[in-house]
């Protein structure tokens, strides 16, 4: 049995790796994707293009505008003079926010009354706009506090002592709240999913489509050996890609890896059970590679989008949240992020590992059974 399996494996490896373009697709493309992904996928909100429309032009209004510029969140791109330019700059997307200070702003503040500043936001990107708004609130509040203190000092007498409450935020696992640390490890999951599921299904269907499967059927090879021969190369390719991407994440992007690397590979093995199982399953119901590719994406899209990769699962409607329990990627992502960022081990991740094992073996079992039927 080992001899036949060995022969099959040699054939598969030659087929997968003979073509230099295929080697390129299997190893170089994932690396390029990781680098582009790592730079492009970023939801940190910094350097928001901002315009200042200062109708007051007092010491106070200039001070506030300067505070916006110095905060690091706002990049002051221009000082607007004319009302009409506000609309134009936002329409053309040249600025995402306009800080408008009306006439009398400084005067109001000096007399100790409540003043307001107007912030016009381009709401098309609702996520960014919401974050920008909370930055602006913070800057305004800190300026307000300082004005109060200086005012009390100027009025003489003992400074009035009033209490304030302040939040001192400390982010665990990712002190500077860098989104890269969140996304880069997760790229592993997406690339492994696409490579193993799509390529394994297409590789099997290819033999059907161009007819070479007839030749394999007449050889003494058993079905189990055929399945192993088709899947083992992708297991190894999957592991190699995990190692490559992990290296890029750690050495290039300096994402911390705090947990156990063997556990990462263990989790990957369980995950591959699901993806290769799905790949086999798709190959049993497809006759052409195009069908296989489309069917694979019919699963890959929801798997990626409903995994918590970018969109938090807690925000989804409840029915969809239940659905995500059937998504192997969901468990795998928790495992990867847990190992990379939190440094937790199997004692915390066992529910995910168990879920992945259960899901994977079920899918693989069904796939193998169906596969036997279609071959006979």
């Amino acid at each position, binding site marked *: 049995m080992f001899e036949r399996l060995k022969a099959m494996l040699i054939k598969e490896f030659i087929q997968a790796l003979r*073509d230099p373009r*295929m080697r390129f*697709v299997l190893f170089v*493309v994932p690396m390029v994707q990781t680098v*582009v992904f790592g730079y*492009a996928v*970023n*939801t940190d909100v910094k350097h928001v293009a901002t315009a200042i429309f200062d109708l007051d032009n007092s010491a106070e209004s200039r001070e506030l505008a300067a505070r916006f510029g110095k905060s690091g969140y706002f990049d002051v791109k221009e000082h607007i003079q004319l009302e009409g330019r506000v609309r134009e700059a936002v*329409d053309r*997307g040249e600025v*995402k926010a306009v800080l408008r200070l009306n006439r009398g702003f400084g005067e109001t*503040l000096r007399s*100790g009354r*409540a*003043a*307001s500043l*107007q*912030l*016009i*936001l*381009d*709401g*098309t*990107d*609702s996520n960014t706009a919401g974050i920008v*708004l*909370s*930055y*602006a*609130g*913070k800057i*305004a509040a800190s300026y307000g506090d300082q*004005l109060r203190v200086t005012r009390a000092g100027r009025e003489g007498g003992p400074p009035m*002592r009033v*209490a304030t409450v*302040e*939040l*001192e*935020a*400390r982010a665990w*696992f990712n002190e500077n709240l860098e989104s890269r*640390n*969140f996304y880069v490890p997760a790229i592993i999951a997406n690339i492994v999913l696409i490579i193993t599921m*799509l*390529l394994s299904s*297409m590789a099997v269907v290819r033999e059907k*489509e*161009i007819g070479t499967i007839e030749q394999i059927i007449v050889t003494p090879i058993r079905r189990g050996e055929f399945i192993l021969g088709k899947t083992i190369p992708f297991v190894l390719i999957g592991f190699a890609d995990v190692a490559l991407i992990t290296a890029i994440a750690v050495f290039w992007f300096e994402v911390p890896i705090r947990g156990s690397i063997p556990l990462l590979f263990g989790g990957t093995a369980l995950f591959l059970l699901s993806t290769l199982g799905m790949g086999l399953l798709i190959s049993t119901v497809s006759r*052409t*590679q195009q069908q296989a590719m*489309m*069917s694979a*994406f019919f699963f890959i899209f929801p798997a990626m*989008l*409903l995994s918590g990769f970018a*969109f*938090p699962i807690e*925000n989804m*409607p409840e029915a969809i949240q239940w659905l995500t329990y059937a998504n192997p990627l969901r468990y795998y992502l928790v495992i990867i992020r847990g190992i990379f960022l939190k440094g937790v081990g199997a004692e*915390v991740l066992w529910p995910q590992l168990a879920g992945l094992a259960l899901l994977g073996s079920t899918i693989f079992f069904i796939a193998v059974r169906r596969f036997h039927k279609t071959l006979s």
Partner: protein
Amino acid sequence: MKLQRIKAVAKKEFLHVLRDPRSLIMGIAIPLLLLFLFGYALTLDVDNVPLIVWDQSDSPASREFVSRFSGSRYFSQQRHTDNYREIESAIDRREALIAHVIPVDFARHIGSGEKAPVQAILDGSDPNTATIALGYAEAVTRSYSREISLRQALRHGGTTAVAQLDVRPRVWFNDDLISRNYSYPGLIAVIMMVIAALLTSLTVVREWETGTMEQLISTPLRGPELIVGKLIPYFTIGVLDLLLSVLVGEFVFAVPLRGSLWLLFGMSVVFLVGALSLGMLISVTARSQLLASQFALVATMLPAFLLSGFIFPIDNMPLPIQGITHIITARYFVTILRGIYLKDVGLDVLAGEAVFLAVFAVVVITLAIRKFRKKIV
């Protein structure tokens, strides 16, 4: 180019698509799936932040502070604890996104008119959610802090005139900051690229791989006729998907379409021709379907998702990557779609983008045709 031969190829390809109903169904089902996922299930909005509180002070002041959080619609889920370990495990297991530790001397600080710090521990492993959650928590804290200050100032017989500063936001184009209005228009660009990747990228290479190309070569058919003929059925599917997207956006998800519908269709058709031609170019160049599928993924689908500004803002990317996005057509189309949908701008603002799409379409279809002729000879 003879119209008759183009018609013949188009008919053959139509039959091919119709007799392989799965590809046709998938060509409609995958876009619909994406539309409903993005319209219904996926949002970056954060409106439920599970909070865990360790109130060491356990005083009227600290309880009042905590009650402000229960009153906010963002922090409806609240849990209390009296030890650090429970906070650790709650954050490890994602049962809490934020933890407040109110120190023992909280009430004393407030009573004596000092600064009273409260520690907020965040789960930084999801930085996007954490940033937004912290923003909410800071706003609640600020309003409470201001109220306390005012109250004490009054009690001290001080002036009621405590200078304060408010932000009055005015959000344009998307008043309620609904993230669906942001993602949905861009989705049309993604869907068209997906069709290009999944349908056109395999159409020519399949004929080579299965050997049917030999038969086609032996007919009087010319290269350009084959390419154009093969594009027509996929173009039809693309237009169908476009109609579906606009209708679902209008009637199911009520995404505001403020600009001109005709401009939207016109620009979409130009983009679609470019996208399908790119798929075709890949199909003509690749030697096997496996390779073609991977190239299509890297050249069409991933950039449309990642580098177009569809979800991840281009402004946040480092400069070299921003440079790359300038050759991604989806980037321009996403700008056009958002402009038409949300901002109600016309060709006067979008002219640059429109010209780029048109030039791209012409260049790529010409390339596809020329590449192909070289091989057939």
